Every structure is written in structure tokens, then in C-alpha cells.
């Protein structure tokens, strides 16, 4: 009897020990919620490239694609939180409220919301990329390369992210070429190749010889290639879609951040923060420069890239005026992050009104 008791006591100790060890070494599981399909070759595609980097770093990942920014998002988040995920990345602006709501119900799960600003609970962090730094480079190239002095810009939706991009692009283009005009066409879609191509065609027919885009598909650079004008790749390197038209691309590089944050959960060092990384931290990457660009422009762009990375140059350095001529940023000052995050006015030199 004694023997039996001792044996069972020992075996339960062993069992307990095994369980504890298992719990400590438990694999960290990360989940990703996507607005679009991973096959969009744009926004969601790039997040998924980041997810694969997490997987390559030895963590388990799950993803749910095509999740609408509605009550559906809450349902998906709850399910992911319930099924043993330790950290959940929500990769679209519209997931802001659902993320905070579900985070309250699951204090032990970490939530990371892309492009948002609400961190209502200690387990919610936010992150975004300073894409406008990339657009400063594109604007510099566009202003130099245009011959008609008309630059076309296909925009998606009137939100601060897009307005900031238009402004940063225009300011940089004006700096190298005060005569340029930026014509903006709103496609009201993130990706619809047909519509994007039509918008680009309209701008080209109106005399634009450089086209910038803030929509996701490769239709615009292809249209530029056909029409013999210049364009820039968005989100990923689009050079192979239009080798003659694409001068460079601004790539979204989420992988390093994702790996960092998942590792932080594994080490127990994760804490709430707001991350806004740019060229300097490698979240925004400028692809190779096309050989059609004159060598002095290439050198200028490389220097600008280094200066933006080091912080020596800021995309929004005063004096900056809005369309009506009101001073937005005083001479010698730079726009602070609060102003950038809520930017909803055009700078001087942009044509037209922001759709309301």
C-alpha cells in the first residue's frame, strides 16, 4: 500500500513537472487578420510576406483573409483569441474598434493593430509605416523626370494616410521643379485593376507623363508601360510588370517588426507601444533605381534616402502652406506626428478639393 502511494505520488510529481515544463516552453502562436486576399500582390500580400518571416523564425502562425471591417472582425478575433493564439495582428485601419473591444475580453492575449491610434487596454499596441518618406523620394524623381510638368496621381480613399502621401509627394516634386502640377483622381477602391487602369489612362490622356499611385494593383504601371510614360510601384517591387515605366517602387517590409514582436511575447518582454517606422528602420524600402534615371538624379535620390533614414531630412519641413495660403508648418520646423496622423488638408500646389 505504502509502495503504491509513494509510486503514485512520484509519478504525479513527474507528471506535474512535465506539464509545467510544457507550459513554460509552450510555443508562441501568432495570428494575422487580413482585409483582402493574400493574392492581391499589394497590401495584404506584403503582410503575408511578413507572416512568413515569423514562420521562418520558428513560430506557428495562422491567418484569416478577407475579413470585413464589421462585426465579423470581432467574431474572427474572439475565435482566434479563444483558440490559443498569444498575439494577434490586425492589419487594417477599420479593425481599430473591434481590436480594442476584443482585447478587453482577453487580457492575456496581445493585440497589434496596424495603422490605428487607439490603445485602450494595456494589451493593445499599434504600428504603422512612414510611407510618406518613400513618397518624398518618388516626388523628387517625378519632378525631375517629367517633361510635361503634369504628374498624375491615382488615389484610393480620402483618409490621412493617403492625403499625407499626396502632400509629401507634391512638396518633394515642387522642390526640384516649381512648375509641376499634381492632378489627382480618386478611384474609390484599394484594388480593382480595371478601374485603376481607366483612372491612369484618363490622367495620361490629360497630359500626365509620370503616374503615381496609392492603390494596390499592378494595372497602373502596366498602363503606363503601354502609353510610354513613367510610373512607380506600390507596396511591392513592380518592376517586372513594367520594366520601362517603373522607375522605382516603395515596398512595405513588415517582417522584421513582426518577428521582433512575436519574439518579445516568447521572452515575456512584450509591452504596449506605438511604433511608426520609416526608411531608417527598414519598414519602408526603396527598390532598385531604374537606369533611365540620370546618374546625378540617382546620386541625389540615394543621398536623400540616407538623409531621411538618419533623420537629417524630414518630409514635412517648413515653410509649408495649405491650398489657401495659410501657414501649416513654420520655417525651420517639421510637422509633428500628431499633425501627420490627422492630416486632412492639401498643401499648396495640389489641384482640386479633398472629397468629403
Amino acid at each position, binding site marked *: 500500500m505504502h509502495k503504491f502511494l509513494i509510486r503514485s505520488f512520484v509519478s504525479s510529481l513527474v507528471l506535474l513537472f512535465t506539464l509545467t515544463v510544457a507550459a513554460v516552453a509552450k510555443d508562441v502562436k501568432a495570428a494575422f487578420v487580413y482585409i*483582402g*486576399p*493574400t*493574392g*492581391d*500582390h*499589394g497590401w495584404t*500580400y506584403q503582410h503575408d510576406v511578413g507572416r512568413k518571416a515569423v514562420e521562418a523564425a520558428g513560430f506557428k502562425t495562422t491567418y484569416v483573409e478577407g475579413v470585413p471591417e464589421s462585426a465579423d472582425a470581432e467574431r474572427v478575433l474572439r475565435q482566434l483569441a479563444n483558440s490559443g493564439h498569444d498575439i494577434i495582428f490586425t492589419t487594417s485601419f477599420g479593425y481599430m474598434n473591434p481590436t480594442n473591444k476584443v482585447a478587453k475580453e482577453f487580457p492575456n492575449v496581445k493585440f497589434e493593430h496596424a495603422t490605428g491610434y487607439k490603445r485602450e487596454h494595456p494589451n493593445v499596441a499599434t504600428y504603422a509605416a512612414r510611407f510618406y518618406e518613400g513618397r518624398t523620394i518618388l516626388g523628387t524623381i517625378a519632378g525631375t523626370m517629367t517633361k510635361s510638368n503634369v504628374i*498624375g496621381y491615382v488615389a484610393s480613399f480620402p483618409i490621412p494616410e493617403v492625403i499625407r502621401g499626396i502632400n509629401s509627394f507634391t512638396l518633394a516634386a515642387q522642390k526640384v521643379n516649381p512648375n509641376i502640377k499634381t*492632378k*489627382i*483622381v*480618386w*478611384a*474609390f*477602391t484599394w*484594388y*480593382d*485593376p*480595371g*478601374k*485603376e*487602369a*481607366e*483612372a491612369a*489612362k*484618363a*490622367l495620361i*490622356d*490629360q*497630359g*500626365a507623363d509620370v503616374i503615381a499611385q496609392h492603390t494596390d*494593383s*499592378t*494595372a497602373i504601371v*502596366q*498602363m503606363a508601360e503601354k502609353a510610354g510614360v513613367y510610373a512607380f510601384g506600390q507596396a*511591392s517591387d513592380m518592376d*517586372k*510588370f*513594367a520594366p520601362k515605366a517603373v522607375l522605382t517602387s516603395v515596398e512595405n517590409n513588415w517582417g522584421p517588426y513582426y518577428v521582433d514582436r512575436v519574439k518579445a511575447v516568447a521572452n515575456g518582454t512584450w509591452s504596449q507601444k506605438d511604433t511608426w517606422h520609416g526608411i531608417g528602420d527598414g519598414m519602408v524600402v526603396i527598390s532598385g533605381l531604374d537606369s533611365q534615371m540620370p546618374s546625378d538624379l540617382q546620386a541625389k535620390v540615394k543621398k536623400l534616402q540616407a538623409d531621411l533614414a538618419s533623420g537629417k531630412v524630414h518630409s514635412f519641413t517648413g515653410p509649408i502652406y495649405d491650398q489657401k495660403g495659410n501657414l501649416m508648418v513654420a520655417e525651420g520646423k517639421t510637422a509633428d506626428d500628431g499633425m501627420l496622423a490627422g492630416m486632412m488638408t492639401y498643401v499648396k500646389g495640389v*489641384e*482640386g*478639393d479633398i*472629397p*468629403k
Partner: protein
Amino acid sequence: MIVDINFVGLIIASIMASAVPLILASCGELITERSGVLNLGVEGMMIIGAISGFALMTVTGSLIIAVFGAMLAGVLISTIFAFLTQTLITNHVATGLALTIFGIGISAMIGKNFVGIPGKEFPVLFEGLKDTIPLLSPILFGHSIVFYFAFTLPFMTSYFLKKTKIGLIVRAVGDSPESASNQGINVRLVRYACILYGGAMCGLAGAYLSMIYTPQWIENMTGGRGWIALALVVFSTWNPIKILIGAMIFGGLTIIQFHMQAIGVRIPVQFLTALPYIVTIIVLVVISRDSRKIRLSTPSSLGKSFHKDN
């Protein structure tokens, strides 16, 4: 803005190019509906055509195989619909919706390996004549073979339905399958053929998008054009020539609103974006007011299942 005559020609040419997929899919669906079958799977068949065309082009390198393969893929997926609705007598609406969902899903699955691959250049005809006649040159010359086919299709469809015996049989089957059956017409066979033809045209419409208009594959790239094509069939009151008009108005307003934005016309952009949908419907309703003609051209047994034994 420079209003030169070639500029107008260029705009009209872009409008026509954007109308092509709508014309193809609508004219295909029109034949299906005239035989009394309502197939809501247009979007699904188009997206299957888009991925099949793009995948075959990438794998085989042959544009001819790709175009015909896309049409065949449209035929194959519509065979499922035909089998379910004609042989198993399932509900047209539910089966059609299922076909669309199925098409979007399976195209995404097949398409996973084709994302991020550039398409091939599709040859155009009469390129050399592009600068010969002012205004007309950009409209008439320098387009793909599918473009020319699309703009003759409504006339051929109209001729087929009005002047040929087979066209008459299709209409008879759509209006009164019972009488047609009593006349010795194999209703099921005719409907099968019309569904498969509709599938082929939707497949071609999809291939036009992924191979010619915007040569690339991304998920959901048809972007609801299948639903617009379906609406065109109804609002044109089953008249192929009015489909052509409707598709041109729709494509035209989409493009003209972009031009208005670029020029800087001070009209709310949201209104401009909604314009194509509103105006197309209004125009088609207005030009199709004659109720006697509507009754004549509406397939009376549209969407109703036909059992041979009752």
C-alpha cells in the same frame, strides 16, 4: 484641357475597351435567359475564365490555347449549373449564386501560384493604320481580336434570335417550354446548349480582363463586373443592341468621371463615382418603356424549372 479631335477619339476608344467584358458576358447571359434559364453565376464564370486564361497563358505560352481554354473553362463550370438545374431540377437562383461563390473560391485557389507574374503582350490588329484618319483611327484600329468580336456580337446575337430557326427555337423554349416540347423540341437539350454558350462567353469576358485589359492575375479581379452584366441584360429588356448601348454608357461614365476629376470639375467625387450606375439604369429604363415590346422580348418562363413529364 486640349479639346483636339484625336483626344476625343482616344477617350471613345478607352470607353469601348472598358465595355468589352460587359458586352461579352451580357450577350452570353442573354442567350441563356432567352431559353428560360436564369444563371446568376456570371461573376463566377467570368472569374474562372480570368484565371484559366491567365494560367494557361503562363504555363503553355500560347495565347490561342489560353483564350479557347478560358472559354472551355466557362463551359465546364456552366455544365455543373446545367446539370444541377436541368437534370436535377434545382432552383436556378440558388444554384447560380452557389456557382458564383464556387467560382470565386476555386479561382483564388488555382490562382495562388499565379499572383505577381506579369502577363504577356496580346497582339493588336491594324496597328499601322492608327494615325490615318482623325478621330476614327484610334476607335477603329489597334485593338485585339476579342475587341472586334465583342462589338459584332450584339448584332450577331440580334440576327440569331430574330432571323434564324435555331434562334426561334431558343425563344420558344424560353417562352413556353411546354408548347415547345409538344412540338417535338428537346427543351432540356436546348437549355443545356444555351447555358454552355453563356458559360463560354463569360469565360471569354474574364480572359479579356486577365489577358488583354489588365494583363495580370489577382483575386476577385472581375470586381463585380459580372453583376453589372446581369443587370444590363434585365434593364436592356433582353435586347442585345440595348446591351451595347448600356455597356457603352456604363463604361463611358466611369471613364469620363475620371477625366472630370483630372480636369478639376467641382462635383463631389462620390457622386461622380455613383454616376455610371445611376445613369445606365435610368437610360435603359427610359429607352425600354414600351410595355408591349417588353412583354414580347421577356422570356415568360425565365427562371422556372421545366419537368418533361408534367
